[in-house]
């Protein structure tokens, strides 16, 4: 293995390490998808990692998150354009593209599903 390869491997290891740290952070701060939220659990993330603060999206409506974030990159698509099931796929994809948090994505999906059904 030459010097360049060693450097590449080191770089990969560093990125892997950073990813692992972030994974732990996300695991610790997951308050939306795993388990019942208890007072003990809610207090834990803030103590471990300062970024694990309450998601401000908790105080916003799905319609608000949808209108404010989607218009940043494209024209707003009418909720009636897709079925609730199709919105499930689209929101999962857009969560990745726009860097939405789980809480934001869930709220937007709930809004689009209910608006689409009516």
């Amino acid at each position: 293995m030459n010097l360049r390869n060693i450097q590449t491997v080191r770089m990969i290891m560093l990125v892997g390490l950073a990813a692992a740290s972030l994974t732990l952070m996300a695991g610790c701060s997951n308050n939306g998808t795993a388990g019942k939220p208890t007072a003990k659990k809610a207090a834990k993330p803030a103590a471990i990692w300062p970024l694990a603060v309450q998601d401000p999206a908790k105080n916003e409506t799905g319609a608000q998150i949808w209108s404010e974030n989607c218009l940043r990159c494209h024209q707003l698509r009418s909720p009636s354009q897709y079925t609730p099931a199709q919105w499930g796929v689209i929101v999962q994809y857009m969560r990745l593209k726009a860097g939405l948090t789980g809480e934001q994505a869930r709220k937007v999906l709930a809004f689009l599903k209910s608006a689409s059904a009516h």
Partner: protein
Amino acid sequence: MRKRITLPILLAAAMAATAVGSVRAADSSNYQQLQKKYSTLKVQMQAMQKQMAQMQKQMAAQQKQMKAVQQAAPSINERATRRAIKRLSRQVMKLSEKEAALEPGNIQVLIAGDVNVQFQNKSGGNSTFYADSSPMIQVRIDKNIFVNTAFDFYTASGQAGGSAADIGAANINYELGDYMTVGGGLITSPIGGIVGNYNPAPWNRWLVDGSLEDNLLPPNELGIWTRGGIPAPGNLGYLTYFLFVSNGPEFIGTSGVPNQLSYDNFTATQNAKTVGGRISYLPIPNVEIGYSAEWASPTQSGALTKSDSWIQAVDFNSYYFNKKIEGFVKFRGGWTWEQVGQGGITPGNPTTPPALGNMSNGGQIDVAYQPSMCGIKYLDKMMVAFRYDRTDGPVTGVQTPGAMHEQRYSVGLDYWLHSNAVLKFEYEFDNVPDQHGSDAMFMQFAVGI
């Protein structure tokens, strides 16, 4: 005679005087009593006044308390109602997830993508029609696993049969939590932000032609990544991140004179890898500021050693939506610096490396305005767009930094038939020093599926 008269008078006067004196004595004692009574009453009145003042104070305090209680009562109810609604919506969400998981055929598949038809006329070249169809197959395996595959079929001159096909995306993503997703495969590169987020889909571009900055940015990455969004500390907006390791780029060009980097290196020639990522900050939802960088060790097939390349980019994206301007105005911009280092990549002759120590840079500023709230038929669906973009780079084969310079001013008029269907017209003023430039006119009909 006088004596007889004087005596009775004197007697009478004495009696009268005595009588007056007794009356005066009686009056003064009454007065004193009255004065005593008055002073007693006055004291009593003052005490009562004090009591009354105290009572008024108490009344005012009680009224304040009453008001506070009256005001607090509905907010307590509101809070309780809000909590109850939140609890209920959480339960509904959980139940609907359970229901969806139990439903037969819970793997959801969506065919999306875009199609566009275009006419372009560049000065000094042939005018031509062009067509492109980019279907995407998106699959939601469950709430955590998402698969995306994208193809690109397009007409192209010089290709066999006049058409070409490409793969734009093939990736699997797994949501690890609210703030992180990990994935692997082929994905649009996040470097530069603008290409990754807005430019790939023609229906989502304000102008038909891509910017000069796009030429400096890698279109795709084939590797593994982690990405997501997290609340910024102190609830001051959000941060997003996208970190990756992918196959490194490859030098292409004539043998011994490599002059371009190709990022479609699907075989990782000589074990070359790229490490990079993008982070962005959103202080408010309609403003995003991003920084991205990637380091790679490009090589050429058959070469003995590698070089290195370094790309950095900044980008911003924002919009302002208000009735005062009868609609919205959007701003986007970015700048990219790309540097390729010295490298002995000549096969069999590492002592005479080609002069690759060069740097390219370029950027763009885009503005668009749509009076979507003006209430005037047709006008509310129109969007005017303007772009200034430029690039400075080495000339092919000469490798002199900044030898090539190009800048353009583009104006466009879009008519949105639908939120995902648009007719576009664009004119591009192109300025290449020492050349005639190649102004161009474009028309396009683009639809997002």
